[in-house]
């Protein structure tokens, strides 16, 4: 009795570390344990022989290097387009900047393979602008790089634009007094936004290196595809999949080290909103060129999406939708909402700890980032190794496993958004509550969450849309008969009716747009 009371008292007095511990245990269970189990699998039976066989094949390493090159090319192209575009859309005197940024950014919330499908409906056989050369280019290594770069460039553009808006206006004004807009942009603004640029490069590289849908659709062999084929295809060999996942994990650790060095907690500070307005940078005689560039960036993503709508309408895909869609849209939404809610709960606790530099918070933030940069195939294989056992079918055999996998993979998205929000609020709000007698849970519920409600809603919304667009994680783990919409489209793509696939893609796009519209309405509504 006395021991129980003592424990309860200790718990009350140390609510913050206990809550952080609980959040850390959950995050470790979904993100760290699978990676450890992956290592454990190699010690079983013939696993080491399989590993030696898989990793000694020259083709394995050729494909690995080629995939690294693929992700690097996508990242370089995204930076080449996204950096100037972020500067133009974030700070320059270009008309309709906000609309252009929204249009340009939307594709990042759509599964990239749908954009590939859309471009196929533009340039491919029977497409709106079909030609042999166009089709050949599309179904090639440069074609796949271009499609994926167009899908992921908004990551760079948005982070750079937001980062630029967070720079202290006086730094910019001090530069403008002694230099023109061009020198100010090149010498002051872009270097100041380097942590945001580094973060953007990391996100793009991670997503490109994980990407399965675009390369598989455009017939470009990539390393994660080889892992995937060992788990569900004709080359079924799970032992080899575990071994093949190891080099991918090594890349993930390298990316984490890069992130810690180049961005880390500094990215919390650069992703805020400035406190006062400064005049737009004047482009002078470069303005017409800039307008054409931003207009192209805004309108280009519309082309593949429009092609999907046209093809679905022409082939009566929409009228056949009910026969093919099943519960997949609902499954997508359900999985995404479950995962995003779990991500939000973790983000409130861990994001706060990371933003305030609490012991353990920075380490858990690093773990979330590691799970994000780890290719989905590695995390998926780890989750299979951990959860696929008879006693755990209550989780593995249901959509809970997809939600847990999403929470692991996209936890960093919510966590970082929440951390940015917390780090921008005055620490004095919570100190005033603490000194007013409130323990951590009460401070969290009554002060921190209400004050940061918008930031936390943004974290939840981003987690929802990232889960909705996922193919790579879900395709490895979805329980029989409960596939999400992305998986349904991906599996029908090979041999389903083209117009129905296009119509299903339109549903996916509409669903994402609706979630973003509702979320944005909540985020930007004025207080009564």
């Amino acid at each position: 009795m006395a021991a129980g009371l003592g424990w309860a008292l200790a718990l009350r007095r140390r609510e913050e570390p206990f809550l952080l511990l609980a959040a850390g245990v959950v995050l470790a269970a979904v993100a760290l344990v699978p990676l450890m189990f992956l290592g454990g699998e190699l010690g079983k039976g013939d696993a080491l022989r399989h590993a030696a066989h898989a990793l000694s094949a020259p083709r394995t390493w050729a494909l690995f290097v080629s995939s690294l090159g693929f992700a690097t090319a996508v990242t370089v192209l995204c930076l080449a387009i996204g950096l100037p575009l972020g500067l133009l859309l974030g700070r320059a005197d270009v008309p309709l900047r906000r609309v252009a940024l929204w249009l340009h950014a939307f594709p990042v919330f759509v599964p990239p393979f749908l954009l590939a499908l859309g471009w196929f409906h533009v340039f491919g056989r029977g497409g709106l602008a079909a030609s042999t050369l166009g089709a050949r280019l599309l179904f090639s290594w440069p074609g796949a790089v271009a499609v994926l770069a167009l899908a992921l460039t908004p990551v760079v553009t948005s982070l750079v634009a937001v980062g630029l808006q967070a720079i202290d206006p006086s730094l910019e004004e001090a530069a403008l007094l002694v230099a023109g807009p061009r020198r100010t942009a090149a010498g002051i603004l872009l270097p100041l936004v380097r942590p945001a640029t580094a973060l953007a490069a990391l996100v793009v590289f991670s997503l490109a290196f994980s990407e399965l849908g675009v390369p598989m659709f455009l017939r470009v062999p990539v390393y994660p595809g080889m892992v995937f084929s060992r788990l569900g295809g004709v080359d079924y060999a799970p032992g080899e999949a575990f071994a093949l996942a190891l080099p991918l994990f090594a890349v993930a650790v390298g990316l984490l080290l890069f992130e810690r060095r180049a961005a880390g907690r500094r990215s919390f500070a650069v992703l805020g909103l400035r406190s006062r307005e400064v005049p737009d940078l004047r482009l002078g005689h470069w303005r017409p060129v800039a307008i054409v560039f931003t207009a192209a960036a805004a309108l280009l993503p519309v082309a593949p999406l429009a092609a999907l709508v046209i093809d679905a309408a022409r082939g009566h895909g929409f009228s056949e939708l009910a026969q093919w869609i099943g519960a997949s849209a609902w499954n997508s939404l359900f999985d995404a909402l479950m995962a995003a809610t779990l991500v939000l709960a973790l983000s409130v606790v861990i994001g706060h700890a990371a933003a305030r530099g609490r012991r353990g918070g920075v380490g858990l933030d690093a773990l979330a980032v590691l799970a994000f940069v780890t290719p989905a195939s590695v995390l998926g294989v780890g989750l299979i190794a951990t959860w696929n056992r008879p006693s755990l079918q209550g989780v593995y055999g249901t959509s809970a496993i997809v939600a847990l996998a999403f929470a692991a993979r996209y936890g960093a998205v919510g966590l970082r958004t929440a951390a940015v929000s917390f780090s921008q609020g005055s620490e004095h709000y919570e100190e005033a509550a603490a000194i007013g007698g409130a323990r951590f849970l009460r401070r969290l519920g009554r002060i921190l969450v209400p004050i940061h409600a918008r930031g936390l809603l943004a974290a939840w919304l981003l987690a929802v849309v990232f889960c909705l667009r996922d193919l790579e994680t879900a395709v490895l783990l979805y329980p029989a008969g409960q596939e999400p919409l992305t998986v349904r489209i991906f599996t029908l793509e090979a041999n389903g009716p083209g117009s129905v696939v296009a119509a299903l893609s339109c549903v996916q796009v509409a669903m994402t747009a609706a979630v973003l519209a509702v979320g944005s309405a909540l985020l930007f509504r004025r207080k009564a």
Partner: protein
Amino acid sequence: MSTSIQLDGVTVLRQGRKVLDDVSLAIPASETLSLLGSSGSGKTTLLRVVAGFVAPHLGVVRLGDALVTERGRIVLAPEERDVAMVFQDLALWPHLTVHGNLAFGLDGKKVPRTERDDRIAAILARVGLSGKERRHPGELSGGERQRVAIARALVLDPRAVLFDEPLSNLDVGLKQELLALFRELLGERRATALYVTHDPREAQALGDRTAVLDEGRIVHLGRIDDLRSRPDLPFARMILEALG
């Protein structure tokens, strides 16, 4: 007279530099001590040590008879110290009304609802804010927000009140008016207060005694007028010049 706040040999290191260097200080109950120093002298850090937000590397802090901090360890968390603080940026919670800001601490102490509302009404009447209970901080003027901040601190009837340069951004007229109000309120309640400022006139106006902090060390403790006998000290000359 019992001691309300006591620091013994408090040293705080930041990146190898001593922000506070062997600071010892005793503030008797009901006294207001002004803590005067230039930017970076360590005065806000000292306040945060008393509040429990910073754990010193060396030294101990007592509030009344209770040991609240000892070398590198927070014994009593800020929420258990029964002190109140008025922050430089006031830190009024923007999502709560004036009433909500004042009620938050009382609710945590499980003060019955009727008593809570009576105490809030009384303190708001005292600071001249009756009728503004339902306003949010964003709907108040700068002076009104200052009054809410002091009311929020005093409504809890704390063991001590800590002020972190709350008047630093105000014009002279409003500053004089609020200093007079602070002095009256602290006097009426016989509250112990530690008032951090970089303005010698504020220090003189409010403090029974003044401690001057320079590079983390207390270089003077007593009445501010006593500095007139120390013209050899550069900081004394500056302070006396500021006082005119």
